[in-house]
């Protein structure tokens, strides 16, 4: 790399960063000299990476995640590692072991999660772009709550190599920025095949956003405007869809019947995968030192009880339960069938429409501490999880405000048509700008 260095000295009023790289080197390329914040579950060589968990405090990865390596090679300067819900498990960034991130629009409210630190860093203008990860909405939710743009790419389009796994079959790394053009630029750098990720596809992204959407068929699933969705949020999103119609898009009412059980299926699958993935945190190879004088199970239990937060322990236990003898058929097997039904519903709709539109989140950002009961927090993910179950791309773009808080328009597309959801978001963004 060429010898350019950027010094970062911003005041982190929102607890967006877990680690700020006060001096970052950068080279030449598409992202030359652009400051990019990286979510703390993405491995960065030589920079502490904790997943906002005490169990990884002090862990310094010996290698870069593929996405981190790509942005560095494109000339970006990594500004630091951003706060998140521990291991990505949450919708508010309140589950961080290092304190919650505050929403820059209103510091009494959550920034959304789990990529809340990345969203807040971008929204507050501390960095131009950020990498987030999305397992059940973790890029789109904070993008919507903080009023920025976030893209959840098609599963397999961005390598997960070096992303510390929570639920492999659902999660993906994706770009976040203040506008669609920057999101698209960052996507063009991180997408593409990586032989180190067995689920990686050879589908590079070389796209310049186009605002031409005349004749585009936009499905409007009634479930996205139904029970549990704040009528004021729904009204703002309906107006945004009206703008798309003015630009020549044709709206088509439709329905996703499998949404009735999509959220339950999502939570069974993600907790099951988490119970397996997080078994590796044993305090032996990384994390706080384990007491080698004790027996294996006693030492293992001690370290996990001290190192994991309550929500992480709850999800590991829920997944262990869903996979345990006598319950596997009732929960995990049924959840997989439900997942297939979600996929089929999307495939059926995409035979007729080009994209689907609805709100990203059912409400505006809630107040810190407002959702103390885990189930009510899980229910906030109802509009984002179907996309992860199906592996399709979706973008959240700001489309107005309710009570002064940003609302996100979610555009969902066919697998590998990330370019199209970017175009629809871009068309909307340009229309409201002019």
């Amino acid at each position, binding site marked *: 790399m060429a010898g350019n260095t950027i010094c970062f000295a911003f005041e982190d009023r929102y607890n967006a960063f877990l680690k700020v790289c006060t001096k970052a080197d950068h080279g030449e390329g598409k992202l030359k000299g652009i400051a990019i914040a990286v979510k703390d579950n993405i491995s960065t060589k030589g920079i502490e990476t904790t997943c906002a968990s005490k169990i990884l405090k*002090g862990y310094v990865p010996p290698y870069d995640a593929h996405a981190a390596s790509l942005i560095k090679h494109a000339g970006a300067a990594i500004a630091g590692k951003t706060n998140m819900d521990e291991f990505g498990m949450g919708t508010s960034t309140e589950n961080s072991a290092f304190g919650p991130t505050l929403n820059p629009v209103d510091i009494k409210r959550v920034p959304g999660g789990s990529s809340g630190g990345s969203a807040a860093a971008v929204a507050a203008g501390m960095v131009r772009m950020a990498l987030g990860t999305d397992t059940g909405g973790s890029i789109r939710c904070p993008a919507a709550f903080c009023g920025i743009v976030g893209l959840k790419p098609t599963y397999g389009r961005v390598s997960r190599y070096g992303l510390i796994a929570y639920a492999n079959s659902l999660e993906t790394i994706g770009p976040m920025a203040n506008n669609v053009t920057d999101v698209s630029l960052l996507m063009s750098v991180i997408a593409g095949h990586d032989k180190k990720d067995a689920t990686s596809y050879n589908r590079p992204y070389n796209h310049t956003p186009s605002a031409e959407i005349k004749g585009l068929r936009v499905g409007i699933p009634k479930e996205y405007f139904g029970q549990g969705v704040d009528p004021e949020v729904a009204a703002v999103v309906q107006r945004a869809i009206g703008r798309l119609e003015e630009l020549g898009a044709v709206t088509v009412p439709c329905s996703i019947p499998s949404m*009735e059980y999509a959220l339950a299926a999502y939570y069974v699958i993600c907790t099951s995968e988490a119970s397996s993935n997080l078994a590796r945190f044993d305090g032996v190879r990384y994390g706080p030192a384990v007491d080698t004088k004790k027996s294996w199970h006693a030492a293992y239990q001690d370290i996990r*009880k001290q190192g994991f937060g309550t929500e992480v322990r709850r999800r590991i236990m829920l997944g262990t339960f869903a996979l345990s003898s006598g319950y596997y058929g009732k*929960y995990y*097997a049924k959840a997989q069938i439900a997942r297939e039904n979600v996929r089929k519903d999307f495939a059926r709709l995409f035979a007729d429409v080009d994209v689907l539109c609805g709100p990203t989140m059912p409400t505006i950002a809630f107040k810190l501490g407002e959702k103390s009961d885990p189930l009510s927090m899980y229910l906030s993910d109802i509009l984002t999880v179907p996309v992860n179950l199906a592996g399709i791309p979706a973008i959240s773009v700001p489309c107005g405000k309710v009570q002064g808080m940003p609302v996100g328009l979610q555009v969902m597309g066919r697998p590998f048509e990330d370019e199209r959801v970017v175009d629809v978001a871009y068309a909307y963004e340009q229309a409201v700008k002019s």
Partner: protein
Amino acid sequence: MVTEKDVEHIGELADIGIDTTELAAFTGQFNAIVEYFDVLDQVKGDKTVTRDLLNVFRDDVVEPSLSLEEATRNAGAKEDGYIKAPRVM
């Protein structure tokens, strides 16, 4: 209905280390969540979902990898280049 005894057993299976003082809260939350999961009973069919995808393997060729120093740097307990673990037996 999930009982405190069930949660204790699951905690043991998951090696998560549960205190008796935590049991009541976890059990209450577990019941609410599992009750919500019961909506999956409505899902028809019991055939396992399969996909026509092949495993992606690479040839077993030795490539550069981490040095011993790099690979063990993050371990808390080490001795003579080895990582120390609690006794299993």
